[in-house]
């Protein structure tokens, strides 16, 4: 059954249709990738899904429930968590605090919000540590986020999303700007998350996409031009012409 679905989703900025009539269906537990050249509208699609701005038309369904137009802060509570293409963390915070804030947001209750000490939320602290452990950063829990390497910041970026304990994980180019070595680490990380979460992945690096995805959707100038398994996408002539052909030949 589809956990996350879009129906004829459209977003126009003036005359530009950044996302044009996109109907997607993300199966629960699957890893669904979205590929396409720069400016194809992938990140805009994520922004729509997470409520950064409302769509011009069309609907978004989570578990069959219409969540179109839900503001970003509410979307997080519905179980959608995202990571950003450009690292978006809390620089002055320790790594643990970075994930702690995210874990607290979606915690069971906000009782004691303005009075209780932050150390006295064992369940939140546990989830935060688990998120750091999942990305392999637990050893650096007390280091400020601004002092870790770019590669580690990308891992932290992912950990913040994980700390929310989401139902759907939206990953926007987790390997952006990583060295080949760091990229391999990130890919194996994403692989360990596969199956535990429903994942929507935006990525440029075709080899990553082909090796981890269950399904792939291809966007081109705002529209979906193909969808299928990695093998089907590789064989698809239109995709090759529009996208793969230009890059890999």
């Amino acid at each position, binding site marked *: 059954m589809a956990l996350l679905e879009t129906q004829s989703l459209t977003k126009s900025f003036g005359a530009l249709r950044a996302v044009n009539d996109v109907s997607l269906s993300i199966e629960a537990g699957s890893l669904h990738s979205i590929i396409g050249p720069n400016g194809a509208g992938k990140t805009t699609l994520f922004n729509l899904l997470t409520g950064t701005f409302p769509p011009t038309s069309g609907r978004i369904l989570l578990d069959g429930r219409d969540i179109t137009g839900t503001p970003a802060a509410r979307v997080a509570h519905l179980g959608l968590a995202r990571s950003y293409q450009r690292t978006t963390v*809390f620089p002055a915070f320790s790594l643990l605090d970075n994930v702690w*804030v995210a874990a607290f947001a979606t915690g069971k209750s906000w009782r004691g919000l303005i009075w209780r000490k932050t150390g006295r939320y064992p369940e939140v602290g546990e989830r935060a540590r688990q998120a750091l452990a999942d990305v392999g950063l637990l050893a650096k829990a007390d280091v400020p986020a601004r002092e870790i390497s770019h590669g580690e910041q990308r891992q932290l970026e992912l950990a913040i999303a994980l700390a929310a304990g989401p139902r759907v994980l939206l990953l926007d180019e987790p390997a952006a700007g990583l060295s080949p070595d760091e990229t391999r680490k990130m890919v194996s990380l994403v692989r360990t998350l596969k199956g535990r979460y429903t994942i929507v992945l935006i990525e440029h690096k075709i080899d990553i996409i082909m090796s981890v995805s269950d399904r792939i959707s291809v966007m081109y100038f705002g529209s979906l031009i193909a969808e299928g398994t990695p093998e089907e996408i590789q064989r698809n002539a239109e995709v090759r012409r529009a996208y793969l052909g230009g890059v890999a030949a």
Partner: protein
Amino acid sequence: MKKPWILILASIVLLPFIVRPAIASEIWIFAIFGLGLNLLLGYTGLLSFGQSTFFGSAAYVAGWLLKHYGINVFFALGIGVGVGALSALVVGYLCVQRSGLYFIMLTFALNQLFYFIAYQWTSVTGGEDGMPGVPRPALAGIDFTNPLVYYALVSVLFLAALWIMKRIVESPLGKILQAIRENEVRAEAVGYNVPRFKLLAFVIGGAFSGLAGVLYAMLFGIVPLEAIGFVFSGNVLFATLIGGSGSLYGPVIGSFVFIWLSESVSTLWARWPLLLGVAFVIVVLFLRGGVVEAWTRFWTWRSSKHKA
């Protein structure tokens, strides 16, 4: 007990021996005012240039009730906290949707709006002459007109305010506000309604300002028009930045430096604000963390020399 608290307690005890009790009281009152501002400035990253709106409104309302209805001191303080919070709710509601320069200018503009209401409404506020005759009624046999007794009251309230603020900044709310300062977009994305939290910071800050406002009115027996003017908003901002907006104790130190300088040096030299200007330039150029940062830098420098 931790070192800062011992230092503060010692200062509270010693201060009346060094300066007049009125000045000593003013220092702690201004510190309460600064604590409220710093929740916005240091923790949430919001530069509010209109804090005297809450300070002044509370001073006028509670001062008026004290003068005409003879309400008791604690009721007056409660009213002040309430008026401070309420005015901050109104101002904050209008401001939190804006960001950057627009936010700052809006806090300033609304401050001016309140100022001109106070300026024009002479039948109540006395306009330019201020509202004199604010009493300090005795309560349960305690005579607050005695400057030292009033100083004790101010000190206790300051300690309470400091302790409450410490709890707030160490709570999840404190962490969330700092997260908003660090990265508003991400704070929203992980599930916090950012404008709502900013508003909450405003209201808490307003409550602190209100408390300070009433104490100020009772201290001098008058609500001067300046208490709601933009210079006052600037002063508390100034003091907080000089003390260090990055830490809980920054505004306390800042208030100490600011009031002490303005009271002691101003009698010797009429151009004393020049000194403040220089201090401010130094802070902005070299010491973003104010006196608190200078202090920690000094100690790390000393301990590194000890090791060598």
